């Protein structure tokens, strides 16, 4: 299971990188989203999966899964959500002000 998840995360990283290298602003933001998904999956997989019950003490299980990566990922989800939202609005303003979403055209002043 861990190897499987890691490989999935690797594919998400590949696609994310490819999208980030694209010249289209919306695709870049999508690529960043893929990156955060892949990172979360990888964080889960590194520590071992399905090693026990959910980390709720009411379960009264013999062993629980590691709660630390879950806490870390929860923080990370919120932060990457904030980042994505901000990037989206920034992209939106770029469209509105400059009328383009092509990174090749976003090059500052041409006379430089």
């Amino acid at each position: 299971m861990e190897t499987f998840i890691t490989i999935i995360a690797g594919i998400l990283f590949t696609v994310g990188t490819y999208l980030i290298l694209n010249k289209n602003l919306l695709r870049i933001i999508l690529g960043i989203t893929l990156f955060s998904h892949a990172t979360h999956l990888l964080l889960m997989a590194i520590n071992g999966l399905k090693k026990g019950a959910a980390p709720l003490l009411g379960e009264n299980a013999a062993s629980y899964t590691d709660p630390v990566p879950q806490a870390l990922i929860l923080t990370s989800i919120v932060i990457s959500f904030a980042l994505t939202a901000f990037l989206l609005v920034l992209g939106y303003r770029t469209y509105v002000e400059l009328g383009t979403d092509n990174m090749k055209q976003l090059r500052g002043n041409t006379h430089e």
Partner: protein
Amino acid sequence: MYLLYIAILIPFFSIPFIPLLYKYVHRIHTGWFVLVIPVLLLFFFARYYFVQQTIEPLILSVPWIPSLNIHFTIYLDSLSLLFVLLITGVGTLVVFYSIFYMSKDREKLHLFYAYLMLFMGAMLGSVLSDNLLVLYAFWELTSVSSFLLIAFWYHRKRSRYGAQKSMFITMSGGFSMLLGFIMLYVTSGTFSIRELILLGDQISQHSLFIPAMYFIFLGVFTKSAQFPFHIWLPDAMEAPTPISAYLHSATMVKAGVYLVARLTPIFGGHQEWFWTITIIGLITLFIGSLTAIRQSDLKALLAFSTISQIGLIMSLLGIGSMSLNNQYSDSSLLFAGATLAAIFHLINHSIFKGCLFMMIGILDHETGTRDIRRLGGLIHVMPVSFTLTMIGSFSMAGLPPFSGFLSKEMFFSGALTASRTMGSWFIFIPIIAWVASIFTFVYCMILIFKVFIGPYKPLPLDRKPHEAPFGMLVSPMILASLVVILFFFPNLIASSLLEPTVKAILPQAFANGREWHVHISAWHGFNTELLMTMGIIILGMLLYKYLTKFRNIYESIPLKFTLNQAYDNGLVAMERISGKLIRFYMYGSTPLYLSYLFVFVIVIVGGSLFLLNGFIFDLSNNAPIELYEYMLGFTIVAAAIYMVFTKSRLISIIAVSVIGYIVSLFFVIFRAPDLALTQLVVETISTALFLLCFYFLPRVSKYVTPMKLNIRNAIIAIGVGMTLTLIGLSTQEHHLFDSIAEYYKDSYTLAGAKNIVNAILVDFRAFDTMLEIVVLFAAGVGIYTLIKLRHTGRKDQ
């Protein structure tokens, strides 16, 4: 005793007061106030002149940065004293001269004197410091103040060019010298010159000893305008003439000479030291004298003559350093004669060159030009100037009855000593010296006869020439009379200044208490040296007579590849190459920069994984996978791959949300209920946001940009994916220590919570949560501002 420190620092302390005096005392020329400082310093240091012969050198030390072994140590022996007297003595005369030269109403005198005092203090500091780093600090200050003074008339293009050039060359030399000093510190563990001398042979075995020597040479040769770094000095002639007289003939260009003399006890006796200094000195001597002849600007002529004379002094110091070589210990006193000649000529040169520069300044001031071709026949109009220039020139040419004659004779005997003692093929040293002296003779004649003799040309001159005011003539008069006095009474300074100086430069040669006394006499019998001088006069006269023919040959030599051109082209090329280089990789395109970053990730992270054999792969610990889990995984992969190939952005957005929802399903499988909840909510909101953005897209770009397969990007992407996958796989097997999760499983007793993840978030590691809230808040504020803020006042175009 600490008066010495005050003496060094007085010029610096005076700087703030100069602008005040300039601004509030209009009636009196600011120079009169400034004059007090060099006069005081001259008298202060003159006291040591008489005590210097008997007592030990003065050493004073004040810790500056003791932890780094940097102490502000003053070491006053006769070598330092000689330079201090030159600096303060010529300084006094130059300030006096400048009072009449610089106009009170037209020039920015406060800047002029402030820079001059900065220079004087820096120069005093560098010749009195015993600590190499303190010496370096003062050394760079002389470069800075010289830069400021050369560009004193900063509205002129040539001044700025000359200042920049001298700055580049002397600063890069100075920096290399610093490297040399640090290498010396590495070899010995001390920055103190005295301690380095005591360490002697011990450090000369170190592998960094010779590199240190050559790095220091670079500093010395750039500062003293030696070949091939002499090119800055002629361009520095754009400075006001008092500055040229002071900095670029008497003091700053001799800083290199001082350092060579000061370091001779450390490096002297080594073949590398002897060869480099002697050869470079001789080349400079020859090229300087040869180039001086073709100059039509009087100041440029003097600049090349300075270059050549300092080359002469350098070569003599080189020959003299052989006195420390064990091989020639029998004739070490003969070599010491060369050092004596160097020191004597150093004094002579400062005197007559200062005088000549001041005379050129007077000519410029009174006629409005320094061009030889426009001057002539001034002997009747300016008889006093003629006399003084003649004294200076004849001394420079080495004619009796002027002091230059004595030092030139000593120069020849030094060169002859080298060839006699070290083998017959060293005969090239006296020959080069002799030929260069012929050229020296010729340009000295040009200086006198082209300017003062011949037809009087009143028309092209801007002003009606007349004799200079008396005040202006005082300083050159004093210098000229010193030239004559030193010829008739050379022993005034022989035993009191020259002898202890030579002993300070070559302490090891006199260590065994050998008796050696300097006695210079104007007449020393018929010998080779005298014959050489006669030959110079005869050949020089002939050459001067046929100068026009000679010059034609001379100017037909192509000058395409002069050093100046090499310097200029080098600067242009460096600028062009760096521009090209930056334009080559700073393309202005974000995807390109991102691909640099990704390539570095692949190369460095992936490379180290490969090189350190970090990759481990082991399936045995894996949890089992159910069929539906495979299905979920393949859906993610399919959605991701579909994103690459789809043309529509709407589908891309939906594919991302598919991936997000499946990730939350995975969280369910991984027994992470909180994560699954959060991920579901967040994914829903993000998808809504993406769709909102999509709605507001410019109509044109909604569908029309199909994603072309970019092979380069694809390779980078696959590389990044592979690297991260391999790292992910390897880390699963690297369990260096147990998880700390056991501690948190006690959360009910520790925090009263049954949900461990929540307990971690708000209790154990609540700081993370607080800052994450701050991040969310900041993003909210940012989004609000982005939407609300419009271009109101400011318009870009």
